[in-house]
């Protein structure tokens, strides 16, 4: 590839031309060709971004649709979005921990424990369901605090702390459930409504419109501010392209979901958490600290960051999100049982994070991995269910997808190393 340096970097409309761009810097021409070149450059450098996952999703959709034409039906896709919400919430927590370069093996058990707490409080003791939900989340938060303190302050490896958590909290969960093994929750209380609520089409379109407007306004404001400060900024066509690329899936999703019952509340909650987490990670000081600790804990410590506090807080948030996942599981099954969170949830939550593109080595990844990875795993299980395939096949296929994702991660790490973009 002939990487020519485009010296026509400054558009004529910028009157307050900042210092001329460094001639060594490859600028991206504001044209489809320029964007394509930049994309190629990033791919070569190991910056794969969400591209492999999106390609994978399209591939999965094409394969399953060709085998069963109900796969892309609004009903199936709508169910899919509700199904991924519970494990997806757990995945967002796992992503926080993976960004630190650590692992949390207890998310499944913590989800189960919270499910148990919720069931026992709401049904056996007749506590108000909202209050019971709150207490269940706080229970998860406390569990995470305990994990975090033992890991950060005592220095026990996170793997061991959360392995103990995996066993211990499952034990407590079984103890809480007692002899029955299952507690049925009210089919029309707030708990059930979490996954049974669908919004009328107008709400779905409204959410899409507001999200797009917020995105466009914030990007335009940020770019205007950068231009005023004389910093390099994105040009209008690029902003338009990005908005369009965001609008397509959002509008398409709303349209498909509106064909069935409307946008499900559970999916909105999940996406809401993903977007909030993404904003926290990218735009706040706290998020910057999380990345710093994951990239180089010693450097973070020397920069005056309270590394222990960051670690404890991340484990607490991860467990609280796992609790939310457990509550979603209860909502979808109308019951808390001994098997809630005790099965494949942990594996799927971690697999989704990795498939979505969050590195196991810390410091690299983003919140959207939870959505993308969750969609991949959800699509696989939903498709195989339609084809009436066994769990055995699903596990094997999921394993293959996970392996491909990790191989891509390792390969892109190598790519980043040779292209000096940070091997972490």
């Amino acid at each position: 590839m002939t990487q020519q340096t485009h010296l026509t970097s400054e558009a004529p409309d910028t009157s307050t031309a900042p210092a001329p761009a460094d001639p060594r810097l490859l600028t991206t021409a504001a044209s489809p060709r320029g964007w394509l070149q930049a994309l190629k450059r990033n791919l070569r450098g190991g910056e794969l971004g969400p591209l492999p996952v999106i390609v994978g999703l399209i591939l999965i959709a094409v394969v399953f649709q060709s085998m069963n034409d109900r796969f892309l039906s609004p009903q199936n896709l709508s169910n899919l979005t509700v199904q991924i919400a519970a494990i997806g919430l757990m995945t967002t927590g796992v992503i926080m921990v993976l960004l630190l370069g650590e692992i949390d093996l207890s998310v499944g058990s913590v989800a189960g424990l919270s499910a148990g707490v919720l069931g026992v409080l709401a049904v056996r003791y007749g506590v108000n369901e909202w209050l019971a939900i709150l207490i269940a989340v706080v229970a998860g938060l406390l569990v995470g605090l305990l994990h975090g303190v033992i890991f950060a302050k005592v220095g026990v490896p996170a793997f061991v702390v959360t392995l103990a958590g995996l066993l211990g909290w499952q034990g407590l969960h079984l103890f809480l459930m007692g002899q029955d093994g299952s507690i049925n929750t009210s089919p029309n209380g707030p708990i059930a409504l979490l996954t049974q609520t669908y919004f009328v089409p107008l709400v779905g379109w409204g959410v899409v419109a507001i999200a797009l407007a917020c995105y466009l306004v914030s990007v335009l404001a940020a770019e205007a501010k950068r231009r005023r400060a004389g910093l390099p900024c994105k040009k209008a066509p690029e902003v338009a392209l990005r908005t369009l690329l965001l609008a397509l899936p959002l509008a398409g999703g709303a349209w498909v979901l509106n064909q069935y019952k409307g946008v499900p509340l559970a999916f909105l909650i999940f996406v809401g958490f993903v977007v909030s987490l993404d904003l926290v990670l990218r735009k706040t000081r706290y998020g910057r600290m999380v990345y710093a600790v994951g990239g180089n804990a010693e450097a973070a410590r020397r920069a005056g960051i309270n590394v222990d506090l960051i670690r404890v807080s991340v484990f607490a948030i991860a467990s609280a999100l796992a609790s939310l996942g457990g509550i979603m599981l209860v909502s979808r099954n109308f019951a808390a049982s001994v098997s809630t969170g005790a099965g494949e949830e942990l594996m799927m939550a971690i697999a989704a994070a990795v498939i979505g593109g969050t590195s196991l080595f810390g410091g690299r990844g983003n919140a959207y991995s939870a959505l993308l990875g969750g969609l991949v795993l959800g699509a696989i299980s939903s498709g195989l269910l339609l084809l009436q395939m066994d769990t055995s096949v699903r596990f094997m296929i999921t394993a293959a997808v996970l392996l491909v994702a990790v191989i891509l991660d390792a390969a892109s790490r190598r790519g980043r190393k040779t292209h000096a973009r940070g091997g972490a």
Partner: protein
Amino acid sequence: MSTPVLELSGISKTFGAVRALSEVDFHVAPGEVVALLGDNGAGKSTLVKVIAGAHAADSGGTISWEGEPVSIDSPSDAQRLGIATIYQDLALCDNLDIVANLFLGNEELHFPGTLDEVAMESRARELLDSLSVRIPSLRVPVASLSGGQRQIIAIARSLLGQPRVVMLDEPTAALGVAQTAQVLDLIERLRDQGLGVVLISHNMADVRAVADRAVVLRLGRNAGDFPIAETSYEEIVAAITGAADNPVTRRSERADTPAAATKDH
């Protein structure tokens, strides 16, 4: 000479049965570059870590800051006083970009907790321009920078905290000729701004180029305090090795010209 901004006296530090520092005195004045010299294991790094707050000194010695006795128990104590330390291993986060690294732990915010990226990037650009550093993009991960660029980023970062004393641990060890000159220029600029600079270096050429004074440690004790301009290279080496008869003098006698030995260093 003006009063020292930082003065240590009678500082000792033991690690188990090893006495890394015993009764060491050290001071640095504003607008002064002090080279801290010594062979491997002489206690330079330990002294730097005591000043930086990474190790607490044993009781007995005193540390004064602008004449006032202070205690430095943690890195944040040192930072609060105005001591910035740039370690040999740089302590940059490879996964973060230049701006993020420059402001790490010290970010500019607008409303509570949110990063003001524009303000940070402009300030980073200004700062690097003032240091005559040309880096194509400030938004690349620092892993993509050369050794010299990384060193300059590390030094630049310490300047954001407006320190009074800057300690540099082997700042030119891994640098090319031009980049070494850049870093030395930078050190002179810091001195001209009235900062006290502590320079730890094995490179005598660098020391002679920028330092005003050389403090030599040997086996954890003070082994001399020389004004650079009036001291010969051999005298300093003798203090470092503890003998007038040392490999360097023998070599220079053989070679007749001291310059040859210096080059070979």
